[in-house]
Structures are given as C-alpha cells and as structure tokens.
C-alpha cells in the first residue's frame, strides 16, 4: 500500500486568525462607531459634545462645588458678597447639607424624628422580602406591609395616642410626605382599581356605566384639577362645618386619580385572559367571587405587573404636584427653600433641583429596574 495518498490530507492545518477587520479593537470601532460617513459624523459630533460638556458638568457638580459652609456667603463670589473668586460657578452642596433634615422630614419636630425613622426601617424591612421572589411567606408579608404597616405608621407618625406627642400634618414635609402620599396611593388604588376594572367589564349596565364614567372622567382631566377638587370642593360636598385635614384631602385626590389609571391597567390584564378560563371556572360551579379571586385575577394581575409598576412610577412622580396646592413634599420644600434668606445665591435653585431630581430619579429608576426584572422572570416562566 502506498504510504500516503497525496490528495488525502492527514492532518488539520492550523486555524487562521480571524481577519483583522473582524475582531480587533479597530474592527469594533469600525463596526459600532464608523460604519458609514453619516455614522462617523454622528460619532464625532457626539464625542465632541461629550468632551465639551461632561468635564464641565463634573466640574460644576463636584470639583468646583462647595461642600461645607454655614450660610450663603460660602457659595457667593467676592463681588456678590461672598468668599469665592469672581466668575465661580458650582454646586452649593453646603446648602443641601444644611437643609437635609428638612428636605427629608419637613418641619417634623426634631425631637420626634425617631418616629419617621422607625417607619422607614419597618418599611424597608417589610418591602425587601416582599420584593424578593424567593422569600417565603408572601401572604403574611403582604398582610403586614399593606395592612398592618400603614395602621402602625399612621399612629406612630400622627401621635396623640399611646403617650406619643401629637404632630399635626401641617408639620410633615419633604421626602416623607412624598413617600406617604405615593404609598397610600398605591395601597388604595390597587383594590379600588380592581373593583373599577371588574365593574367596567361587568354585564350590569348601571354598574358598568358608573365605572366607565368615573374612569374616563378622571383620566380625561389633569391631576391638578383633581387635586383642586379634593382640596377646594370636598369640604363643600360634606356636611357644613366639616373639617377635613388638608393632607387627607391630597391623599383622597391622589388615590382617586391613581385608581382610575390602575383600573385601566387591570382591565388590560382581564381582557388578556382567554375566555376558556372564565368558562372553565363557571363549569366548575364557582361563583363570581371565587371565579375572580381564584382563577381570573391571579393570572390577570401577574400579566400586568409591569403596567402596575409603571403606574406606581407615574404616581410617585405625580405626587410632586401637591406642591401646587401648597403642600410641602420633597419638591415643594426644596422650592420653598430657594426663598430662604440664609441661602439665596444664584446657584441655590439649580443645586436644590438637581438634588431633588436625583432623589426622584433613584426611586423611579429603581422601580423601573424592578419592573424589568419581574417582566423577565415572568417571561421565562412562560417560555421555558
């Protein structure tokens, strides 16, 4: 036999490196930044913009910023009556630092701050396991978070009982108010939204009409008008001489508004449940209440969790509107501090707004990330 056949290869040749235009850094740049002339132009413009603005922004926010100081002179230039060199501009974090407690809790008596702080600890302690899909005892957790916690917090914050000092709601303010209003909005709007959505899909014409009118009326008008209605008209609608707390009026306004939006999200979920599910529940002889609570709603709500979280985000942002009916939520109290003679400087408003914006952003971004996480989780559970 021949030792070998010339046209039969007996070993693999070494693999060649991929062409340089495919794998190197240059290739990546070429593919992702300079694929065409327009692409290159856009990239260059974007890079120029970044090089121009980013260092300036970082400089303004951090490098030139004033971090400590007792009053406005710390953040004023010499010709404005302060100590900084002429032409200076930067963030005045000293002001945020000085007002921090007020931004968080408003005028809540300083000696009683442990009360809101305790509420925060309870909230975080209950919320984290509630949000973790793996944590056990979801039912108990929900019960504690959505029913026990609000009641305990109510008595803790307001006081007047159990030997606690009474703290009027007019003293509440800052982030605390923002969180309370959005939390109450969430807790109220979920069940109210479910009822409204069920009402809208019901066969009973009167029930249905009432729900449609309510939902569409509230969704058709801006939150401000609903807040005005709650704050100005509500007292007129109740018995003469009634006296509803202003804070409560804002809570009612926000809850009404959120319920109408929540109803539409839930309705989307209800519509997505196949008819077979309803029929199967009927066939099993379940009554309406059982059919909804055991078969339809669990599936429907699971479907629309992202939508629900988005509504929460919207509501969280919308709480800032209570500023307009002169309540001091985070944005309101930050804005009110611009007029404080102790800290009037040209950079105060910008610093304060950036701070408030950052706080809002953290909460909203966190919620939207969580929503995306839940969405992914639910996705995989369906596709396997």
């Amino acid at each position, binding site marked *: 036999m021949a030792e070998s056949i010339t046209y039969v290869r007996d070993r693999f040749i070494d693999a060649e490196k991929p062409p340089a235009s495919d794998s190197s850094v240059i290739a990546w740049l070429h*593919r*992702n*930044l300079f*694929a065409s002339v327009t*692409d290159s132009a*856009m*990239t260059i413009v*974007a*890079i120029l913009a970044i090089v121009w603005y980013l260092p300036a922004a970082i400089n303004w926010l951090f490098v030139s910023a004033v971090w400590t100081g007792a009053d406005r002179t710390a953040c004023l230039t010499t010709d404005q009556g302060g100590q900084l060199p002429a032409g200076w501009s930067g963030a005045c974090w000293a002001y945020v630092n000085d007002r921090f407690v007020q931004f968080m809790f408003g005028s809540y008596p300083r000696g009683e701050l442990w009360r809101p702080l305790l509420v925060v600890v309870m909230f975080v302690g209950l919320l984290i396991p509630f949000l973790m899909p793996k944590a056990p005892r979801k039912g108990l957790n929900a019960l504690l978070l959505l029913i026990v916690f609000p009641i305990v917090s109510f008595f803790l914050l307001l006081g007047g009982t159990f030997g606690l000092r009474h703290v009027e709601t007019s003293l509440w303010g800052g982030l605390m108010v923002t969180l309370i209003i959005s939390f109450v909005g969430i807790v109220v709007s979920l069940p109210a939204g479910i009822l409204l959505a069920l009402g809208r899909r019901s*066969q*009973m*014409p*009167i*029930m249905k009409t*009432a729900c449609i009118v309510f939902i*569409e*009326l509230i*969704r*058709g*008008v*801006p*939150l*401000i*008008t609903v807040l*005005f*209605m709650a704050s*100005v*008209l509500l*007292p*007129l*609608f*109740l*018995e*003469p001489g009634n006296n509803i707390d202003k804070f409560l009026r804002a809570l009612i306004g926000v809850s009404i508004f959120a319920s109408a939006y929540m109803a539409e999200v839930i309705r989307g979920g209800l519509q997505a449940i196949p008819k077979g599910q309803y029929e199967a529940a009927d066939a099993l002889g379940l009554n309406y209440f059982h059919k909804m609570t055991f078969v339809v709603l669990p599936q429907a709500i699971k479907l629309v969790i992202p939508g629900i979280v988005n509504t929460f*985000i919207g509501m969280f*942002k*919308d709480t*800032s*509107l209570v*500023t*307009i009916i002169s309540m001091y939520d985070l*944005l309101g109290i930050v*804005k009110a501090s*611009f007029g404080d003679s102790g800290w009037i400087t*040209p950079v105060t*408003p*910008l610093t304060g*707004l*950036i701070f*408030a*914006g950052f706080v*809002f*952003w953290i909460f*909203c*971004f966190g919620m*939207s990330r969580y929503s995306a996480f839940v969405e992914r989780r639910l996705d995989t559970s369906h596709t396997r």
Partner: protein
Amino acid sequence: MALADARTGSGEPPKVSLLYNPALRSIVYQVVTLVVIVAAIWYAWNNVVQNLARANMTAGFGFLNSRAGFDLAQSLIAYSSDSTYFRALQVGLLNTLVVAAAGIVTATIVGLLVGIGRLSHNWLIARLCTVYVEIFRNIPPLLVIFFWYLGVLALLPSIRSIFQHLEENPDAIFFISNRGIYMPAPVFGDGFGTVLIAFLIGVVAAVAFTVWANARQRATGQRPPVLWVNLGLVLLLPFLVFLVMGSPLTFDYAVPGSFNMRGGMVIGPEFLALYLALSLYTASFIAEIVRAGIRGVSKGQSEASYALGLRPGQATRLVVLPQALRIIIPPLTSQYLNLIKNSSLAVAVGYADLVAVGGTILNQSGKSIEIISIWMLIYVSISLITSLFMNWFNAKMALVER
C-alpha cells in the same frame, strides 16, 4: 318570571332559592349601586347648597360676564383688565392649546429621533439616547419645568446686558435674555393675503400632483419627480407671487425700551420652560414607544425588503414604519393626552394657561364649583377630541393590513 330561567334540563325543577338567582341578584346589585350613587350625589348637593348658603354665596355662571380686573402676561387675542372673566378663560384655553400643540410636535420629532437612535448600530449614539431616556423618564415633569425656569432660563443674560450688547452691535436683531427670546415680528402689508392664497393653491396642487403621481406609478411603474415639483408648487409659487405683489412684508424689530425691549416678538421664559420641559419629558416616553414599535416589526420584513432591492432608508420608510405605526399609535395617543394634561403644570411658572387663569378667577370670585367644572369639561372635551382623531388615524393606518 325570572325564576323560570333557573330551570335546567328536564324533570323536576331544582329548588333554587331566589337568593341565588343570577338575574335577580344582578338587578338587586344595580339598584343598590344606583341608590348609593344617587344618595351620595343628593347628599353632596344638599351640603353644597347649605355650605353656599352658610357662606352667603350663590352658584351659577353669571359671574363670567363680570369684569376680570387683572392683566395677563401672555395673550393671543385682545385682552385687557376690562375684559370679562369669560374672555380671560378663552385666553387661557388658547394658551393651553398653543403650548400643547407646540409640545406635541416637538416631542414627536425628538421622540422619534431618540427612539430610532436607541436602535442605532452606532454604539455611542445608542448609549446617549438610552441615557437621555432613562434620565427624563424618571424625573417628575414639574421638576423639569422648574429646572428650565429657575435653573437655566433665569441664568441667561439680563435685559440690561442686552441693552449694552445692542449699543456695541447695533445690527443685532435676535436676543436671548432672562426675559425671553426677542426676535423681529413680521408685519404683513397689503397684498400678503394673495401670497397666502397662492400658498394654499400650491399646497392643494401639490397634494393633487402626489395623488396623480402615485396613480401613475401604480399604472406604469414610473415615478414622476414628486419632491421637486411639490417644492416648486409649495415654495416657489408663493415666492413669485410675493415678489410680484412687491414684497408686502416688513419686520418690526425689538428695540430697547425703558425697562424691556419694545416691539418685535418675544417668547417668554414661562412658555419656553413649559414647552421645553413638556417636549423633552414626553419625548423620552415617545422614544420608548417608537423603539418598541420598530422592534415589534419582525426582522424578516426588513430582510425581505432588502431582497426586493429596497435601500435601507426606503425599507424603513415604506415597509417597517407603516407596520410599526400600528403598534405605536395607541400608546402614542395616550402620551399626547398626557402632554395636554401636563400642560396644566403651567400654573407653577405663571404661564397663563387654562388652569392658571381659572385659578386666578377662582380666587377673585370664589366660584370654585363653577371653575372646576369648566376645567373638567374643557379637558375632557380636549381629551375626547384628541382620542377621536387618533382613533381615526389609527383606523386609517390599520387599513394597510391585508
């Protein structure tokens, strides 16, 4: 009777208590609901009457004809402090519509660009667009308004420095100050109406030509030069008429007055802050909608259009976008509605929109029920009209489906 409905199958009718009759129950529930609603309204109404009597106030819309007594900063129609409350509300409504319309147009354009940008192959552009969306989506619009108003526009040059600037550059006609943007105002002379008519004729002719061109393309496969002919019709025709009429257009330039610029046209910082904030805030949502819409069109569609020989631009315009629009329009509608509703935040910076003007009237006259009803009625109507229009547009788009 209703009991008969409960009878199932043959033989002995099962004994079903009236309590479990669905039809009867439904009626009972509804009657109870109705009673509760009517009672609540009656209760509220009764209290309103009592409360008003107690406060010695009367209800009714007659006050709308009273003299307003206050001045408004922005007004598109003739208005002075001698005008009526009703007139003031009209001014407010117009201002709302103006800022909403301007905001919708800008938000759509920016949103579309950013949405497409997020899907761009250009890594940097995609990242920048993502950063934009994630920042603006997660900040309250009210805060964005304040940011523009107090953080940016208030820091622009003062009117004094503009005066100084004008002394050094007497030819300058366009100024940006913390009192707004000043620019020359067009003054239309005699005969400008003819130019407008020529423009309208041009537009109509352009539309007609496009329809004809489309029909011809379908019939013969050849496409006439639509773009150039249309440009000529829409721009050149009015321009020629303009020249023939002897250029009936002059400009009124802003000149320094005692405290402010006099003459010219000014866009106030209140409008700018509101307009920029609404546009940029809503654009971040529209970008997400556009992105979802484009991603909702399967990749095979673009590949198929490439296979048919369409260029990427054509593929996007003729194949992908029309399909994406069907996904985009419903959520886009609700964003438009949100923008219109958010324009009520004008009250925070003193832009004289419907809510701000209404609020002032509410304060001066104490007619809270009437003003809030007017607000609700107008906003619900605007929302309904917008929804109807967008539904019509949606239906028109849906016809593309075969």
